[in-house]
């Protein structure tokens, strides 16, 4: 009886180990591709990505990728996160060095309510507000006295999204103000906040 259960468990573990070994690479590849596509989606064309680094904003360390052509920085892609309605909401934000937002996109996994908060993935009316958003605008939803119209019936998600974007903009302002070497934190030494 115990022998039978042991054998079944052993055999199943072996099968799982095999499948894991086979799929580990495609899984890593799929994750890398998703990340890369998210970064590409929020940046203008014509540059190349530098390695990720960290920058501290309000006590949290954000990961960012400098996007440069030659020596001059075209933009930054900053991965910012805040708490949405259903859990953490991670947003990839492309910001020009002067603090203008280029584009934004939600990073998966996301657990906002389908049909409500989940619309932050594709609600044109909401997302288009961020494209070319001036660094002078107030990054809050309109209910809170800001310049962004929230998604209908999804104020909490919208608030989280806007907060993530404002963190990213703050990070870029910090990076642009100081020489990159001072603001940047070596990711290998510091634990990156996810």
């Amino acid at each position: 009886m115990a022998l039978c259960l042991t054998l079944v468990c052993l055999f199943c573990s072996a099968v799982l180990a095999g499948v894991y070994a086979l799929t580990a690479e495609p899984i890593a590849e799929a994750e890398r591709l998703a990340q890369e596509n998210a970064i590409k989606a929020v940046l203008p064309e014509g540059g190349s990505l530098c390695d990720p680094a960290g920058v501290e904003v309000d006590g949290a360390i954000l990961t960012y990728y400098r996007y440069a052509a030659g020596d001059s920085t075209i933009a930054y892609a900053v991965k910012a996160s805040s708490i949405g309605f259903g859990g953490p909401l991670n947003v990839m934000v492309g910001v020009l060095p002067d603090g203008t937002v280029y584009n934004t996109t939600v990073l998966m996994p996301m657990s906002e309510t389908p049909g409500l908060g989940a619309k932050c993935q594709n609600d044109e009316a909401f997302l288009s507000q961020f494209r070319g958003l001036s660094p002078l605008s107030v990054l809050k939803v309109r209910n809170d006295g800001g310049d962004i119209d929230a998604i209908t019936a999804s104020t909490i998600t919208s608030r989280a999204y806007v907060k993530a974007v404002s963190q990213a903009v703050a990070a870029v302002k910090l990076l642009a103000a100081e020489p990159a070497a001072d603001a940047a934190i070596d990711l290998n030494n510091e634990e990156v906040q996810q």
Partner: protein
Amino acid sequence: MSKWSLISKGFFKENPTFVLVLGMCPTLATTTSAINGLEMGLATLFVLVLSNIVISLIAPVVPDKVHIPVYIVVIATFVTVLQFVMQAYTPDAYQTLGLFIPLIVVNCIVLGRAEAFASKNGVWDSALDGIGIGLGFTLSLTAIGIVREILGSGSVFGWKFLAGDGILAFVMAPGAFLVLGYMMVLFNKLAKK
């Protein structure tokens, strides 16, 4: 029982959703759109067919006292395999279904078929039974998903025919219960005739 009726019973006589009323958790939670329902159904179908095949093969040699743990280990193995494969090749579907993929392990339909059918029947019949019940589950979930998506988002399989929002309640939990309830009534009324 003829081979055909092994499959067709999953659609009507023993439809897991509308007649047996099993696996309600994924049914209510993942049918926010037609495509989500379809993906969840297919994921369950995959596990159901494979676990039915393996369990029908090992059932004669598994001692009675440990048969439930053995079946669960077999089912959990297939679910984990499915998880790896989905994560690698359909990352989008994996992200949407999220938690509900690992929860297939405790889906009553899968263990129910293992206990009630696969452990007492041959490999071939068990595979057909898995296909029948799995397809029945898939179709039911897709149907609920279609109705909820039409009413809740004004679209079908992501194709939007209505500008603006639908009736948002149908995308959320109360809508799931309402749609399921009314579709169950309709199904049973039609099935009786």
